[in-house]
């Protein structure tokens, strides 16, 4: 699993990258009450704001971590946004991307580096 400085995690499944937010991020956000997911079959570029998470406190964006195509979104989050707090690293994945160039992931942190990053 890889981690971004925006507190997303990325897990490779074949030629897909599964994206979610870290436990640290979900704790900082507080109780999540609404998730707006991207549309599937959209091409996104690294840094695009593609998801919105609303917690009891505020709205935050999820950025596309790499270039690619959104091929699947986790519809369960629309009805049960609280999953983001309950199981951020598992059931509460946000979307899957088809990524041509997997070397884009090389620059991201591994788990130990991420732990150092969040201190």
């Amino acid at each position, binding site marked *: 699993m890889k981690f971004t400085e925006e507190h997303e995690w990325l897990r490779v499944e074949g030629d897909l990258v599964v994206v979610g937010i870290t436990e640290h991020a979900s704790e900082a956000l*507080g*109780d999540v*009450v*609404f998730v*707006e997911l991207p549309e599937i079959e959209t091409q996104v570029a690294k840094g695009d704001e593609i998801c*919105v998470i*609303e917690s*009891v*406190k*505020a*709205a935050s964006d999820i950025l596309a971590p790499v270039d690619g195509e959104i091929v699947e979104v986790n519809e369960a989050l*629309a009805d049960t*946004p*609280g999953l983001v*707090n309950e199981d951020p690293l598992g059931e509460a994945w946000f979307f899957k991307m088809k990524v041509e160039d997997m070397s884009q992931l090389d620059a991201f942190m591994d788990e130990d580096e991420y732990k150092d990053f969040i201190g």
Partner: protein
Amino acid sequence: MADLMRTGLYDLHLELGAKMVPFAGYEMPVQYPMGVLKEHLHTRAAAGLFDVSHMGQVILPITAVAALEALVPVDIAGLGLNRQRYAMFTNEAGGILDDLMVANRGDHLFVVVNAACKGADIAHLRAHIEGVTEVTDRALLALQGPAAEAALARLVPGVAAMRFMDVGTFGWQGADLWISRSGYTGEDGFEISVPDAVAVAFARALLDQPEVAPIGLGARDSLRLEAGLCLYGHDIDTTTTPVEAGLTWAIQKRRRAEGGFPGAERILRELTEGPVRLRMGLRPEGRAPMREGVEIFAEATGGAPIGRVTSGGFGPSIEAPMAMAYLPAGLALGTTVYGEVRGKRLPATIVAMPFQPTTYKR
């Protein structure tokens, strides 16, 4: 947070694992480990303890009734012994300087004002009234929720007989507690002014009750919003009149007939003719909250904004988003309007408030 003030319960908040944030010049608990959502639901299901010691507590001589009436459109002379009333300081334009609680405690009036306004409020009071005393040696706690009476009555048996908006003095371990049956959550509950010397011990005694959990400012805001209660500086301010804010219930008959308060000309005219705009409740469709600042439109496309959200968020008890906005007064309940969220116009229905039924013990 070096320049921030702390309440007497600061160390207790830390011990309870609170996340502290700056609020109105104080370092205050925004949430405890339970989290905003569960704290909110706990308050509606059992009882929540809030530290509201940052609010201003002020004593006025009982002879100041007429002088206070000159500052508020509220009937203070008709306030019975050991009773409390909601009021607001108005300005000459009819705008609201702050909202407050006034209690008739027999030999004096006890006033509670918002933390963010207390300096200005006390200066305002002193400019018009002799003998204004700020109370600086007492904490203020709120115990709210359906189990508040049972929990508090174990420590202070007399409170069970109080009704909504009653006030009284009760003893606890030799200290005088000034208690009112009121609050800011829509639930039955109490606000308790307690001497600093015993404030922590009293808070601990309440937290020892099985129903009671500590609740932060985050849940305080979602609870008051579900209850349809205004937050000063957001839903009411110097640009809104009490009539526009839907607070006409707080202006008693005698004051409507006699006037004699700042802004009376405009406020009495709006009472007769109706205001141009009115604070209304909105229930957005779906789950996306419409937060403060979201512009409201009459149509799904085009046109100019007809209003703006003054408070908005997600209601944990109603399990849906909710908002307040000032909208043209003619709009009927049930009308669909549109809030622009991240560039998209999302439908919302105008509804009556409160969003969550209140449970005051009348």
